[in-house]
């Protein structure tokens, strides 16, 4: 078992079988996280560099814990601690890191496509931990893992994703992932947040939130970034919350067993009402918990760990 690929750069290039392997492996590894001693020797002697060129708490911590639970040595580098602040280029920094023989480099970068540049240049495995507005494959995989866990399947489900689709790498990767696995995705947001030609990605698009969530099995709301107000994407948070916020009023459109998801960090009271985020439908914290298992799965599959070693 394993993946016959060097990198995880996006969802588009993963096959259905590969996604299933990744999710199945994550399901299996998840149990380690509830043991009293949460560590297996699987990736002992492997080095994982967490190269985060953009601020991140959740994703970096999740990768870091995942690596440590598999006994890999993980080293964290952020933009402010790297020589990139001294004017070094991304490729030069990466080549220097590679000279220290890491096995896997996890990259978060503000520029769409940056992981491709690294993957082309370096022989270490690259995992994309979010690049610009392009892709966040590990988030989409952990979202699929969470939905599969709750619903028992992905095929035939109706997924509604609400918010700033144009600037969201989470939305792009989830559209690619869920549609690949046979689910139907409906995107909703104000026209200013719907990018041109988004229908070519295979999702339905509407400006009407109620239409999008009607009968949905999963409703995922996306974080609204305040600074987008300056580029005229929406007038005020107040008006956004009224038209596209997930409020108790709107829950009546949704079947009672629907899942409420959010990739975080959440703006309570803007894209999602606090009582819904904390409510019984919400699987927001399950997403975070599954994130660790999912990332363990990817590190394991790319790092060539020996599965049986975890019992010794």
């Amino acid at each position, binding site marked *: 078992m394993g993946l016959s690929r060097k990198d995880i750069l996006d969802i588009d290039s993963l096959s259905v079988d590969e996604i299933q392997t990744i999710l199945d492996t994550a399901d299996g590894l998840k149990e380690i996280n509830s043991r009293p001693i949460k560590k297996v020797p699987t990736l002992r002697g492997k080095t994982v560099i967490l190269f985060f060129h953009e601020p991140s708490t959740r994703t970096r911590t999740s990768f870091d814990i995942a690596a440590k639970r598999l006994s890999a040595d993980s080293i964290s580098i952020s933009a402010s601690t790297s020589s990139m602040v001294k004017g070094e*280029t*991304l*490729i030069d920094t990466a080549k220097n890191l590679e000279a220290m023989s890491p096995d896997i480099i996890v990259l978060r*970068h503000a*520029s*769409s*496509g*940056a992981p*491709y*540049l690294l993957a082309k240049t370096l022989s270490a495995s690259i995992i994309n931990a979010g*690049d*610009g*507005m*392009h*892709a966040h494959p590990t988030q989409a995989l952990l979202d699929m893992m969470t939905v599969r866990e709750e619903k028992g399947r992905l095929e035939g489900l109706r997924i509604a994703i609400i918010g700033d689709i*144009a600037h969201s*790498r989470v939305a*792009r990767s989830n559209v690619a992932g869920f549609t690949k696995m046979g689910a139907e995705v409906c995107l909703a947001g104000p026209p200013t947040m719907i*990018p*041109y*030609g*988004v229908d*070519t*990605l295979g999702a339905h698009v509407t400006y009407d939130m109620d239409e999008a969530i009607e009968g949905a099995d999963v409703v995922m709301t996306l974080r609204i970034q305040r600074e987008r107000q300056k580029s005229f994407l929406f007038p005020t948070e107040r008006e956004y919350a009224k038209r596209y916020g997930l409020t108790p009023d709107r829950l009546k459109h949704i079947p009672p067993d629907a899942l409420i998801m959010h990739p975080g960090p959440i703006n309570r009271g803007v894209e999602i009402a606090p009582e819904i985020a904390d409510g019984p439908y919400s699987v927001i914290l399950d997403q975070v918990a599954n994130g660790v298992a999912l990332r363990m799965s990817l590190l394991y599959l790319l790092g060539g760990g020996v599965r049986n070693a975890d019992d010794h």
Partner: protein
Amino acid sequence: MRMIIKGGRVVDPEKLDGIMDVYIENDTIAAIIEKKNDSPPFKEDDADRVINAEGCIVAPGLIDMHVHLREPGEEYKESIETGIQAAGAGGFTSICCMPNTKPVNDSKEVTTYILKRAMSLRSVRVFPVAAVSLGLEGEALSEYGELKEAGAVAVTDDGHPVVNSQLMRRAIEYSKSIGIPVISHTEELTLSNGVMNEGPVATRLGLSGIPNAAESIMVMRDIAMAELTGGPVHIAHVSTSESVREIRAAKQRGVPVTAETAPHFFTLTDQSVAEYDTHAKMYPPLRAAKDRRSVCEALADGTIDAIATDHAPHSALEKEVPFDEAANGIIGLETSLPLGLRLVDEGLLTLPQLIEKMSLNPARILGLSAGVRIGGKADLTVIDPSRQYVYHAAEGFSKSRNTPFDGWEMKGRASFTIVDGRIVHEI
């Protein structure tokens, strides 16, 4: 120095088209002889060089009216010398260099420096284009009178739009008395803050898009300026169907507007960006298939007058970086002719039309001379239209290799480039 170009198809659009021998004495075309019974000015035995041009086209020297030579200031990307070599290899006998050098060419001194440097190389002719505004800052006019006397053939703030419409108006008005045309880089900056064409490809790649309107709004404004002032405006690097539509309509009403496009706009679409190829990043960006079709139609019906490369050398420093950080622009001097000849092969243009767009029309717009005429300057390009080869940027003459055409199979190239009766390039 006496030279004979024998047996080629001599094409000077609307004047000559046939198998003829061209006799060159020193820097001048001495005779163009169609039949054996015409008496040649000198015998073949007396010629210093006889070029067998059978199967080739003998064309007026090609002119590229939009080139960035980078000197002075950014010689690590290109120099006047390497740019000239690349131009000669591409079949160009004349090139016009843009003013966004360091320092900016907004003065007699920089213009004179470029001309001296180019003339000392005794090769391809260089015609400097000076800045519309001092320092390309869009605040004050440069001294067009003195620039014209020093040898500048046009003015442009290329690389930047002239944002201030009043400045654009005055630039066109003022240039009328001097006879120096204004070339416009059309870009509405508040709309163009993306990194590639807006559309499905940008959406898939998560790259911010530049809508067609970012170009066409300024095309419309500059047409309005030409109408207001009665002075000529030349629109650089046209890339969209909306721009084409506006220019076509303006020409029909008799507005003195001319336009150029670049080989990449009639050859490629934004699909070439896929996988974040920074060699497919330029401004304006590669557009959709429908825009490419419009540009081809506009070349065919005369809406677009000229093909110009917008040769924009950048080093790996500017290109081996994430896509949104990469510099805009690609090199083009050595690929323009074979890409143009593809249009002829595809039946979109006739050969004389291609030669008009790559030589006579740029000359007409800028007030230069071009043609195959007895007594005229011996600036000629001998083109072998059937020669097939693979273009390798690393083997080219430009210092830079930023091209999306690396490794392309090409058909047709300049076998001789002749300036002032001297061969500056041959293969």
